[in-house]
């Protein structure tokens, strides 16, 4: 009997010890000697990027999630290393003083990936198809400012507008504003073989869609004809890389392990939980910089008690933003005291309105008639960092008497929940590099979806309208700052953090990678130091 017992215990102990050693030893990685690599760009090879989810389609009309499209398609104008507008497919552009006519002069000698010449008529046709209601383009509202287009010659495209629109350059330069081949779309799109976007994509970019294994990988291959790269690139010609592969690895620990073993050479989104580990890997360089975005606690402002500005203000004062940045994000975000990230010219912060002041918060809540607090729900999508942020918020809210029950949703469920208009408190994050995000989420006509905050307010609408139709970008900026001051006064949101972009590159294998503003990626100048697995 005792022999049997001893056996059990001994075995259990051995197995437990083995598991412990295995887990704890995870902390100390095996060091790898950096291999010798040439420092001059070298042609050839495949570079693999590990991503958590794959893009939805290469059809620009339906695309909502961009990864890799920027290499298949070119835009008329680009953003350089300082995020300034620079030539793309258009060499130069000008507008009339009234801001209602914009002329773009296109580069000569540009060819589509199917070999046909690229002309201004293609640009016109592309936008016409996008604006056609039958196309049901997801991003059509970004281009409704186009009233008509003219093509005086093959290399000139003229946009006519009804009203000035200073944000036009942004819209033309964003990834959704890239141009895809109207001829290919007609042949393979919804009215053709329906393979456009998944099997076939024709752009003018430096990489072509070679293979897409759903759920596994997207392989892009070099376009050898390419020689019209933007002026700010070192390499304006064809890619050094033979192929660029996006591999889908949903589990973040697995993604990090693949980087460590070198099967994946680049991660474009290192989760904050793994930053510590990745930054200590000997052959890995980490690129860390502010991203364009905002994480915030939002209110269903049409629903009780959040229709009371004092309640919203109280919650704004009850939150220790520094503590959240530190505890939830290990200081890999910036505490947010405004509605737009600091990288944008329109950014405006008010640290006093969002200071951590529990006493003042309690007082405001009492003034609003909730001296004993209230019960509510705090909804969040089940993304780990948002769930963690919600858990950190819970005791802060409880400190002023608000008992918030956390409810998690998956992505599809969350969107439907927000559309239902029943939301109380909910977590949100946007990633966007333009002030018009405020128009998107807070203009009255957007409620309840995507205006989830259910914010319907005349003054907001007026401020947005004057800003968006201002004659110059400077006036637009001023008007937006005015709007932000008003929103802060009304405590429409509780801004929490500005996210950061964290990218990791195996510099023993990869040369020529540079950080691009906002956490974008540019692989035109990138080469492989040696063959990858």
């Amino acid at each position, binding site marked *: *009997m*005792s022999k*049997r*017992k001893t056996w*059990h215990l001994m075995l*259990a102990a051995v197995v*437990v010890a083995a*598991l*412990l050693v295995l*887990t*704890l030893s*995870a*902390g100390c990685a095996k060091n790898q000697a950096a291999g010798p690599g040439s420092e001059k760009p070298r042609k050839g090879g495949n570079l693999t990027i590990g991503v958590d989810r794959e893009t939805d389609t290469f059809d620009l009309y339906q695309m909502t999630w961009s990864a890799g499209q920027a290499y298949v398609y070119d835009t008329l104008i680009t953003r350089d290393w300082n995020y300034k507008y620079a030539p793309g497919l258009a060499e130069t552009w000008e507008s009339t003083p009234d801001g209602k006519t914009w002329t773009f002069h296109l580069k000569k000698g540009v060819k589509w990936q199917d070999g046909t010449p690229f002309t201004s008529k293609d640009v016109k046709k592309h936008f016409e198809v996008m604006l056609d209601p039958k196309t049901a383009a997801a991003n059509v509202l970004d281009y409704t400012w186009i009233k008509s287009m003219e093509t005086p010659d093959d290399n000139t495209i003229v946009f006519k507008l009804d009203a000035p629109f200073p944000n036009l350059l942004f819209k033309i330069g964003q990834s959704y504003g890239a141009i895809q081949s109207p001829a290919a779309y007609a042949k393979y799109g919804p009215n053709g073989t329906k393979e456009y976007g998944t099997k076939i994509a024709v752009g003018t970019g430096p990489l072509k869609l070679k293979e897409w294994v759903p759920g596994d990988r997207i392989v892009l291959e070099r376009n050898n004809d390419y020689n019209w790269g933007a002026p700010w690139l070192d390499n304006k010609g064809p890619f050094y890389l033979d192929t660029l592969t996006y591999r889908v690895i949903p589990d*973040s*620990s697995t993604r*990090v392990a693949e980087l460590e073993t070198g099967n994946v050479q680049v991660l474009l989104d290192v*989760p904050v*939980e*793994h930053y*510590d*580990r990745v930054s200590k890997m000997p052959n890995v360089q980490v690129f860390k910089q502010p991203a364009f975005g905002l994480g915030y606690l939002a209110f269903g402002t049409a629903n009780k008690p959040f229709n009371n500005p004092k309640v919203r203000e109280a919650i704004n004062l009850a939150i*220790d933003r520094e*503590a959240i940045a*530190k*505890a*939830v994000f290990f200081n890999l975000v910036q505490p947010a005291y405004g509605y737009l990230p600091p990288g944008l010219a329109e950014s405006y912060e008010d640290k006093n309105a969002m200071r951590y002041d529990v006493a003042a918060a309690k007082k405001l809540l009492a003034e609003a008639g909730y001296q004993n607090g209230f019960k509510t729900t705090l909804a969040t999508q*089940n993304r*780990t960092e948002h*769930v*963690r942020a*919600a*858990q*950190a918020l*819970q*005791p802060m809210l409880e400190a002023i008497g608000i008992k918030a*029950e*956390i*409810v*998690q*949703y*998956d992505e599809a*469920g969350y969107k439907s929940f927000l559309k239902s208009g029943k939301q109380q408190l909910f977590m949100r994050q946007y990633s966007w590099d333009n002030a018009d995000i405020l128009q998107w989420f807070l203009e009255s006509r957007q409620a309840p979806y995507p205006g989830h905050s259910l914010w319907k307010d005349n003054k907001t609408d007026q401020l947005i309208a004057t800003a968006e139709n201002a004659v110059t970008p400077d006036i637009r900026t001023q008007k937006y700052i005015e709007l932000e001051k008003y929103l802060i006064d009304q405590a429409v949101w509780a801004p929490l953090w500005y996210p950061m972009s964290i990218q990791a590159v195996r510099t023993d294998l990869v040369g020529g990678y540079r950080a691009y503003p906002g956490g974008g990626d540019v692989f035109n100048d990138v080469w492989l130091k040696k063959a990858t697995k």
Partner: protein
Amino acid sequence: MGRWKRFTKRSSARIGIIAVVIFLVVAAFAPWLAPYGYRAQNLNRVLEAPSHDHLLGTDEFGRDVLSRIIYGTRISLAVGAIAVGIGMTVGTILGAIAGYWGGWMSLVIMGLVDVVWSFPTILLAIGFVAVLRPGLTSAMIALGLVTWPSYARMMRAQVLSLREKEFVEAAKAQGLTDTRVLIRHIGPNAMSPIIVLATLGMAGAILVESALSYLGLGAQPPAPSWGAMLSSGRNFIYRAPWLTVAPGLAIMFVVLAFNLCGDALRDAFDPRKV
């Protein structure tokens, strides 16, 4: 009671019982045993390694892992017991009916079993929870609803082979009613694989709950479900391995305890054993 004696005679059973009792005591007296509250955060002391203050370290909110493990005992035991209870009760009864009487009832029941069994457990559970509303209660009900077919199939197979046995024929010859034969004679003899299944089912229930919690469909934070702890700790497997070691081992030990008990119970219930 002969069975009880046979049961407790084995040392593995004694270890199992003691362990289960310990878990039950821990669950019952969690507020007195835990050094801290399960939701008491300290954002200045996050992800600390095990120390004198925090024997199992702290999690990403500076909460005491030991305290959360102790409170978590309640959730895991409840999830296991209720899910298995629902699944076993429904499955055993339906399986016995199908096996003993056969006919169209068997067809319908086994058809239902086949339908439910055609889905991977976790996916059907996800589906049920999605419809019911994410939370612990939904998870327990869903787990019960997806696990009953294994009991039903096993029970039916047992009853099918037992009902031909002499002692059953003898009981029938004595003029006992079918229900009585089923409960008194076939039931006890059919139970041993059911109990083996049920003990494994406890493990399964706790593990599936962890997967559901991972997807945000199980216990909602800050509830200290071991599954949820394991899932959230997974993100810190490199920098704070104790976050996954502690709940992982807790799950392992509680399952081990039930398995030891189940094995011994099986032997004790087995009337053929001398």
